């Protein structure tokens, strides 16, 4: 018998690829097993209707004062232990010392900067209020050049610029 000959019987395989829905239909029309409804109803009957209330063990009930005391002590111990743990990690001598704030020169605010560079002091006006208007072309007097004094070497005697103690040649 060819598979497609029996079109009325859904269980017979078909060779046409478009007839795959026949297979799905066979599965979709399968008879339910006998007694399915009875088994479902029996299971529903055996299931408790009301929500089950879990009860605390006798030791945990409200009338046992010692259990409450123990629980309170445990909570206090945990809180104290946690506090001590935090305190032991943050010691006062381990706090990082912050550098002191150095006021910026020139009267400007340092805007809360942690460090400000050491800059050379600028010219200071002696009488800024009474000073006449400075012409724009006048050169600004630059500060005196800094003389860096080198320390004297000990192995070589330093030669003085003038020798007053020696007799002058005539």
């Amino acid at each position, binding site marked *: *018998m060819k*598979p497609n000959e029996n079109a009325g*019987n*859904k*269980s*017979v*395989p*078909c*060779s046409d*690829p*478009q007839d*795959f*829905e026949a*297979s*799905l*239909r*066979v*599965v*979709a*029309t*399968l*008879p*339910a*097993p006998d007694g*399915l*409804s009875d*088994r*479902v*109803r029996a*299971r*529903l*009957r055996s*299931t408790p*209707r009301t929500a089950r209330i879990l009860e605390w063990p006798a030791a945990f009930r409200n009338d046992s004062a010692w259990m409450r005391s123990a629980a309170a002590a445990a909570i206090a111990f945990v809180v104290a232990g946690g506090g001590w743990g935090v305190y032991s990690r943050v010691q006062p001598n381990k706090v990082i010392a912050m550098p002191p704030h150095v006021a910026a020169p020139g009267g400007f605010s340092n805007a809360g900067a942690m460090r400000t560079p050491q800059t050379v002091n600028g010219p200071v006006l002696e009488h800024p209020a009474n000073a006449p208007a400075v012409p724009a072309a006048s050169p600004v007097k630059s500060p005196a050049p800094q003389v860096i004094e080198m320390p004297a070497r000990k192995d070589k005697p330093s030669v003085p610029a003038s020798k007053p103690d020696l007799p002058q040649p005539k």
Partner: protein
Amino acid sequence: MSTGQAVFAGWMEIPKGAVDENARQHAEEQALAALVDEYATTLYRVAFSVLRNAADAEDAVQEAFLRVLRHRDRLDEVRDRRVWLIRIVWNIVLDRKRRAKTRPETDDVQELARVLPAGGLSADERAMAAQHHAHVLSCVDRLPPKERQVIVLSAFEELSSVEIASVLGITESSVRSRLFRARNLMAGLLNHSRSLR
């Protein structure tokens, strides 16, 4: 005073609330039993089309009705109970299928051969039919999930495209477009497997 205290402490009078509660519980049981009688077979078929195992499908049906029992207070709010129940069992079987390992095709053949109705077929013909159906179902398994779900549900003649859309939570036009793609994919898969033979 609770109902139980009134009944067991006095024995002289039964409070009216207890009678109402018993009547309400009895009515709920009757309604649930009617649902089981009416829809257990449909739910079993839906479950079997995905799980392809009779015991698993029956277990899924029982779980679906247990969920209904849990939410029996909202039973009156449900408009279409059939679609609602199918949606419940559909979610259950999809969840089980996701967790379970892929079933080999030989298991499907044996299970189908066991549950297929005889229909006047010989043993050889039944075995051949089971093999063919299992092969088709294995092709269905290779479809993308969205197309697979639609094509499985479309095989149920009692489900319209609107109801399939309601079960899957999509629009009716999506159902149609997915069904069109699924049919094309299935034809391609079956042609390919036939050319390999």
